[in-house]
């Protein structure tokens, strides 16, 4: 390949934006007008695996495609609310079952081909096709039935839901509109899943995003160039985006990314650890970049108890340990013994936030602010244990009712240093209750296998997050039959009364359209979770990002994509 690169002709002149015509129904952005030209280089933790939005499963692919594609409605990363995108407006029927979306007129894909309601219809037909196994299909299945889509006219599309679904407009976010003219042959031939891989020529790929594919060099980088037909303009009527090019470098570790950023080879960095944030801080001025601590993220780290009913036969110990774990006083005692402040201080160097709920303070719309934060108290934790029949021997070791010492293990992912540190801290905290806890770091997939398949573990430290703030994005965590109901997977009916209660509340909020009422219902879920503690929430890392000073309109957000969500507005000063 280096040979072919050597003889390749040098790069063509940057693609100029197309002049704006009055017929085009462009969206006017509120940003400060910038100037055209330049390139921004960002590093990706791994190579994107595909450019096919229908089958993409990995984060890097989504990060790249998010800049090449656009959706009908979009969640604004700053306001966290849904707002018009390719659809200019939307109307909801009173019963919440019918969504009528009006499309912007005379828009073009990045290859210059016109976009209309047929492309929207095609997109949803593909996403809802069972044979394709698109992950988006699950989001578009409501009340057990897929959403139905009808074309009203060239610029109007009607979506019908089988049952009311709260905040259904958020579902349209990230449902990237596909060009029918490029993909329908592959779809009819049954090869859509393989279309648009990394070897597809750029001319065969088009989207509605601010950038389009220019070049992919395996193992090294992927270059996007300006989509000259993009459908947004600034208030001085300049068509966006401003940048000529957006380059994604593949740099496999965070440390290597930091080096590249520091050396000026990358212009932005995101998902920084607190360690690297402080290491970079001292060079910020001399190397002309700025670092941003945006406060808590939506990610929550938690200690998880194995409450599964199906436990492998060879793991008889776990069944015995579950007697403790099922006791709510035991879980509460553990929660009260954990020093969350120490986790924030030592693991996140203060750049994190202690948690008492899996809704983090970043989620201002849905956090139940009245939730009590039980202070750390070893004394009270001991009282709780005593109440449940636990006792201590002469050496101070905790014994259960049958006189057996309380000993168990905490599983963590070996590749995640932060979670391993949390396990060590918790080990120390619980020692003060007389519990003998062992931290067991395992390779990530092996750990997932234990949690999801074999259930061969006592407790584990994991993290979940959300791409979205809405409670519906967490519904499979809370519902007892949900695929992410980690503490007891595969329940056919709720194992406990409180889980039954959460099921009912989550189902109710799902069909409640009024925000205030929904908030009350979700607050109640958070209260029950705080009392019953299936997860012991620990801390949320802050969102830490950095960018060169010369990048204008840089406005990082706590919703993904933290730094590139407004890439069309970025410019080189």
């Amino acid at each position, binding site marked *: 390949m280096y040979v072919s690169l050597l003889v390749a002709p040098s790069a063509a002149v940057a693609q100029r934006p197309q002049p704006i015509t009055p017929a085009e129904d462009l969206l006017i952005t509120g940003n400060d007008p910038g100037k055209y030209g330049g390139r921004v280089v960002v590093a990706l933790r791994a190579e994107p695996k595909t450019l096919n939005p229908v089958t993409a499963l990995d984060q890097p692919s989504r990060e790249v495609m998010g800049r090449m594609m656009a959706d009908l409605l979009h969640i604004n990363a700053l306001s966290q609310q849904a707002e018009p995108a390719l659809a200019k407006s939307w109307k909801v029927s009173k019963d919440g079952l019918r969504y009528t979306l009006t499309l912007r007129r005379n828009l073009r894909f990045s290859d210059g081909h016109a976009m209309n309601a047929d492309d929207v219809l095609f997109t949803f037909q593909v996403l809802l096709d069972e044979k394709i196994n698109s992950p988006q299909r699950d989001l578009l299945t409501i009340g057990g039935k897929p959403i139905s889509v009808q074309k009203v006219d060239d610029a109007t599309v009607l979506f019908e839901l089988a049952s009311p679904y709260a905040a259904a407009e958020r579902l349209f976010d990230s449902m990237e509109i596909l060009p029918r003219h490029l993909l329908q042959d592959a779809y009819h031939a049954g090869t859509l899943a393989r279309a648009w891989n990394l070897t597809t020529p750029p001319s065969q790929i088009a989207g509605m995003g601010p950038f389009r594919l220019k070049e992919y060099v395996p193992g090294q980088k992927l270059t996007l160039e300006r989509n000259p037909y993009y459908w947004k303009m600034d208030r001085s009527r300049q068509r966006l985006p401003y940048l000529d090019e957006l380059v994604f470098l593949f740099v496999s570790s965070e440390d290597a990314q930091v080096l*590249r950023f520091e050396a000026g080879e990358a212009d932005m960095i995101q998902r920084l650890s607190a360690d690297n944030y402080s290491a970079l801080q001292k060079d910020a001025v001399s190397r002309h970049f700025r670092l941003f601590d945006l406060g808590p993220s939506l990610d929550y780290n938690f200690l998880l108890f194995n409450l599964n009913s199906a436990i492998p036969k060879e793991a008889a110990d776990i069944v015995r340990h579950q007697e403790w774990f099922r006791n709510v006083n035991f879980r509460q005692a553990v929660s009260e013994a954990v020093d969350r402040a120490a986790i924030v201080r030592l693991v996140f160097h203060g750049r994190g936030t202690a948690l008492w709920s899996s809704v983090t303070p970043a989620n201002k719309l849905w956090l139940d602010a009245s939730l009590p934060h039980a202070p750390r108290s070893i004394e009270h934790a001991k009282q709780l244990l005593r109440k449940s029949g636990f006792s201590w021997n002469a050496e101070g070791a905790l014994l259960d009712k049958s006189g057996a010492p309380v000993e168990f293990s905490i599983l963590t992912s070996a590749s995640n240093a932060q979670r391993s540190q949390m396990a060590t801290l918790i080990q120390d905290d619980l020692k003060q209750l007389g519990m003998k806890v062992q931290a067991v770091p395992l390779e990530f997939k092996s750990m997932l296998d234990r949690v999801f398949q074999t259930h061969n573990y006592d407790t584990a430290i994991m993290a979940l997050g959300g791409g979205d703030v809405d409670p519906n994005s967490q519904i499979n965590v809370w519902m007892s039959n949900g695929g992410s109901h980690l503490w007891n997977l595969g329940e056919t009916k709720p194992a406990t009364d409180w889980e039954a209660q959460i099921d009912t509340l989550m189902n109710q909020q799902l069909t409640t359209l009024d925000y205030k009422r929904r908030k009350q219902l979700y607050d109640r879920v958070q209260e029950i979770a705080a009392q019953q503690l299936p997860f012991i929430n620990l801390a949320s890392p802050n969102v830490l990002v950095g960018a060169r000073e010369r990048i204008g309109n840089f406005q990082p957000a706590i919703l993904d994509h933290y730094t590139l969500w407004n890439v069309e507005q970025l410019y080189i000063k």
Partner: protein
Amino acid sequence: MRFLLGRLMRSGFLLVGVSLLSFLLLQLAPGDFFDEMKLDPQISPQTIAGLRTQFGLDRSLPVRYGLWLQSAARGDFGYSFAYNSPVAPLLKTRVRNTALLAGVSTLIAWLLALVIGVWSAMRAGHWDDRLCTGVMSISLALPDVLVALALLLVATRTGVFPVGGMVSTDFADLTLWQKARDIGAHMMLPVLALVFGLVPTLVRHVRSSVAEALSAPWVRAARAHGIAPGRLLLRHVLPVAANPLISLFGVSLATLLSVSLLIEIIMSWPGLGPFFLEAIMARDVYVVIGTVLLSTVFLVAGNLIADGLLFAADPRIRRS
């Protein structure tokens, strides 16, 4: 000819054996490619089950191995779950970069080792030979990872060398000469790290085999006959000392490849290393098997080349 044919046949069996073992061992590793999707609360277990069926992960091991053999026969070497594409073309683009790095490093390392080794053998017992042996022992003891990290540190602190990758972002806009220089600059650190790791071992071998040849009675006799030292060394001593070194060449090619994977990961060189690591972590099994097979091919090819060279160099082997 029969000698080479026999070697080739054995290599074929070795490849089948390696593929079978990789299959079995990967089967034993817990978890599969789609496990990570379970962490996304927005993807249902049904979708994951559908994907596992689509990629044939629900079939039995012998069936999967049979299917893989078929696909290997077609030249695809299986299908990558992550890239949704056959494995062979994915490997092809990356193996070139690895071959470039490993090839250049082998060449430089051997050139250096021959010069230093022969010189050191000729100065055997003098203080400068002792010093050289001492330095080589110390560098032999330094782990490659440490050397690579130290080089990276120097690169970031001084800003002289690029800190990773293979080309600059403005590569496409450069002239031919600038492109060659750009790749050269990016190669500098990984090549240095690899050469540093390889040279001490090679020097020790070169030194001992040349020293051994030099101490042979016929060398003393030749010297007594007044044959010039330069001619004696090049025409008589080196060919005799070459045999063990040729065998070592085959092995060095294989060890260099395995070290190179590690260095590639540290230095973000876009070769097989980072690709292989990611595939293992993600349980993208056919990519892992493909890479393992490819490294085996390198090993076998290295040994075959060495065998061929020995065959050409040593009349005794030809006769047997």
